[in-house]
């Protein structure tokens, strides 16, 4: 545990990304492979599921420290992080048996799963008796899971790549998808020879930067491949030996939810990987994202659901063909090959190719972009024709040129403490607009958009204006107005206000506005109604579902 504990505290204190990267590399050089693979697993965002419930943990801590449960909860609210809260409440001990990380996992963490509450309590207390103070926080982090210690997945791959002298992209692919330290070893991750293990795994997705400057600064428009920016689920579709897999950007295998798309595998070449977007797509054409939501998360949907809510895979890139990695080839070449594949595709499959927009100048494109909202897309994607398929967000190759968001002025009605870097500051806000009865109704929650200075100032305002407490939520005097940006509105029966906003975030703090100047629920509903209505029958398309408008 000492090695890992030291790593944890160092990463927690180091303020520079490169220093953290060095420290992580040093750890992998010294720690055993058996221990390292667990650290890789945890840093990939995994956790030991159902080891212990939050409520149980709070109860055990309360009993041990002689505090009432509500006070433990109050502490949790204040600190913002459960693992840290518990570590601060457990009495210090200095009599640790020397455990390695693997010991800790085998002795304490894995056995917790499936235990009766009373046995769990005994085991947790044993851990608290035997662990030294500085090891408590790392231990509790392992227990509650879902931590990064300031290391992104990309940097984790970089550190491992340095240790094994393997390309970070290869490491990233090997770490993709679902795996456990039981079925993947550090040796396999660092293997210099590309084995067969990764075939049905996705490649790390290439991500786009928002275009913040004028498109003219990107040079000639003819150097760029322009596509609509689709509003669906980003996914990679893979085939191998007659079987298919679909991976989402969250490294989740989502094929089970889309058996209709897996059917397409029959029509596709062998050992292929395409990047694209899953869209809700009926006979009338593209449908809004809200229709797709009915399919998301529903595993093995019935045939009536598939009929009612049909989907389509809109391909836009080719990453692998006949077992050959195409990612380093230029985009223009990949696109050409993708077009050939689609030319030979039999009809009747829910597959499409993201059409290219062949308008001459940036200014013509600018004009066309204004139609985005009417077409149900989010703007343009700009991809440099010579670019390789990068792992992650790399500047200069892919840009999203999005339409301007909707804006509305809303009143902050309650606040909650944030997490991680923002723990013990009120940074999560509920926002409300006026309904017909002149009451404020909450329509959104927003976490981001203020500067650090504004956050600190707003935190002080919250603390002086609390009017009620509901668990971790503090209602506050409705005096402050934020301008909220969002991408769309859906009518929603689950929300009290009857609408749900997509990607709400704070655009700016409207100090010049009074609460009575905030927008109304009616205005928000109008946006939702406009969006839910299909535009006169939807766009026209060919037999395989490609839009004909462009």
């Amino acid at each position: 545990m000492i090695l890992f504990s030291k790593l944890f505290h160092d990463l927690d204190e180091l303020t520079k990304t490169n220093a953290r990267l060095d420290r992580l590399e040093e750890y992998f050089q010294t720690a055993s492979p058996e221990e390292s693979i667990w650290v890789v697993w945890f840093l990939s965002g995994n956790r030991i599921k159902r080891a212990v419930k939050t409520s149980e943990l709070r109860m055990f801590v309360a009993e041990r420290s002689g505090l009432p449960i509500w006070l433990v909860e109050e502490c949790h609210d204040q600190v913002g992080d459960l693992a840290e809260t518990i570590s601060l409440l457990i009495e210090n001990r200095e009599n640790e048996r020397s455990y390695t990380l693997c010991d800790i996992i085998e002795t304490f963490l894995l056995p917790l799963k499936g235990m009766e509450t009373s046995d769990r309590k005994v085991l947790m207390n044993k851990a608290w008796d035997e662990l030294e103070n500085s090891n408590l926080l790392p231990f509790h982090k392992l227990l509650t899971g879902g931590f990064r210690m300031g290391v992104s997945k990309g940097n984790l791959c970089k550190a491992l790549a340095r240790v094994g002298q393997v390309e970070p992209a290869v490491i990233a692919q090997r770490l993709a998808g679902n795996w456990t330290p039981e079925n993947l070893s550090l040796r396999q991750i660092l293997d210099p020879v590309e084995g067969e293990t990764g075939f049905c795994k996705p490649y790390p997705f290439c991500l786009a930067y928002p275009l913040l400057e004028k498109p003219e600064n990107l040079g000639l428009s003819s150097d760029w491949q322009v596509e609509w920016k689709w509003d669906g689920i980003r996914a990679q579709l893979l085939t191998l030996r007659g079987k298919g897999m679909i991976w989402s950007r969250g490294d989740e295998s989502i094929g089970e939810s889309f058996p209709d798309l897996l059917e397409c595998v029959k029509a596709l070449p062998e050992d292929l990987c395409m990047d694209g977007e899953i869209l809700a797509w009926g006979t009338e054409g593209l449908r809004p994202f809200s229709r797709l939501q009915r399919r998301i998360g529903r595993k093995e949907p019935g045939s009536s659901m598939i009929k009612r809510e049909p989907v389509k895979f809109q391909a836009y890139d080719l990453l692998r063909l006949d077992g050959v990695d195409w990612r380093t080839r230029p985009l223009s070449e990949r696109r050409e090959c993708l077009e050939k594949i689609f030319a030979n595709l039999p009809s009747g499959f829910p597959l499409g190719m993201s059409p290219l927009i062949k308008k001459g100048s940036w200014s013509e494109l600018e004009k066309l972009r204004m139609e985005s909202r009417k077409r149900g897309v989010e703007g343009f994607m700009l991809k440099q024709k010579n670019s390789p398929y990068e792992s992650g967000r790399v500047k200069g190759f892919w840009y999203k040129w999005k339409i301007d968001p909707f804006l509305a002025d809303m009143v902050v009605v309650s606040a909650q403490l944030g997490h991680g870097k923002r723990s013990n500051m009120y940074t999560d806000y509920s926002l409300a607009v006026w309904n017909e009865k002149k009451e404020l109704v909450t329509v959104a929650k927003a976490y981001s958009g203020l500067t650090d200075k504004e956050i600190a100032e707003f935190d002080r305002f919250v603390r002086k204006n609390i009017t009620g407490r509901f668990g971790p939520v503090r209602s506050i005097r409705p005096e402050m107005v934020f301008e909220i940006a969002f991408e769309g509105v859906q009518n929603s029966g689950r929300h009290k206000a009857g609408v749900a906003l997509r990607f709400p975030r704070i655009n700016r703090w409207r100090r010049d506005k009074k609460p009575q100047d905030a927008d109304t629920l009616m205005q928000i509903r109008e946006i939702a109604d406009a969006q839910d209505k299909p535009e006169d029958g939807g766009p026209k398309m060919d037999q395989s579902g490609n839009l004909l408008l462009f």
Partner: protein
Amino acid sequence: MNDLELLEFRPEGLYCKEGDFYIDPRGSVKNALITHAHSDHARPGHQNYLCSEACKPLLKVRLGDGVRVEGMEFGQSCKIGNSRVSFHPAGHVLGSAQIRIESKGLVWVVSGDYKPQNDQTCESFELVKCNGFISECTFGLPVYRWLPEDLIHKQINEWWAENAELGNASIIFAYSLGKAQRVLAGLDSSIGNIFVHSAVDSFFEHYKKAGVRLPSTQIIGSNSDQTYAGSLIVAPPAVEESNWMKRFRGAKRGFASGWMAIRGSRRRRNLDKGFVLSDHADWKGLIDVIEGTEAEKVRLTHGNGHALSKFLQDKGLDAATLRGAEMRGEGED
């Protein structure tokens, strides 16, 4: 009957009618009793000030020489109107006092800021029995639990030595009155040179006169040839993001405060190191003192007293947060 019996809460602050004086008031009043010389307690603008004798010179540094101020020795009592008043060490910073007020057969104590923990740079906290106790509660949650100060001093010296070995300067942000001196008192001057910001220096001579042992220091900027590699610098947090910091490019930055107990407070400021060193009582300190006073009524101020008052109520005490007293975030510590 007035809830606070001998006291009442007015817009200017706590007021004692029997003696016609305020405690740590804001605005402009005739008679102000001051618990200690921190700026959120000792404000300018009043006609007459009364504080502990040890606090007097510090108050003059804060408010200027022209201010009308008298000092009382700790434990000495005097009559003000129909009340009897005395000052008792609060252990917060040098000269900090709890104020005891006796009238109509009742005793109330206003704690100001206090800590029962050991601190070599100020008078030790004195427990005063009373009927009513107005207590601060800056760190009123059980997650706040202080380690003995010599352990923290050890952490600071180790960090400094580690940085010095790599040729880096170390800066510790600490409030210029109290915390800065407390940090300095524990430094091992064999590691390197010690520098202070001029705001920290202004209280020095009074600490020395009071018999507090501090290492020898140089003021930043007094000599243009100063180099800082391997040295330790103590500066007030207010300069953290100012141009003044430019001369220390590459220096490691630490902060000494009770708030550093929570990682978020450290990470938000992008500090290299947080030292959990507080001049306020921790949770256990608050409970021990409150119970020790044997007060029947406890009123909490300066902090989020919600949890502590509920905890005390559950124990059967008449406890509440002081009505009108503002809640504080990460205030001075």
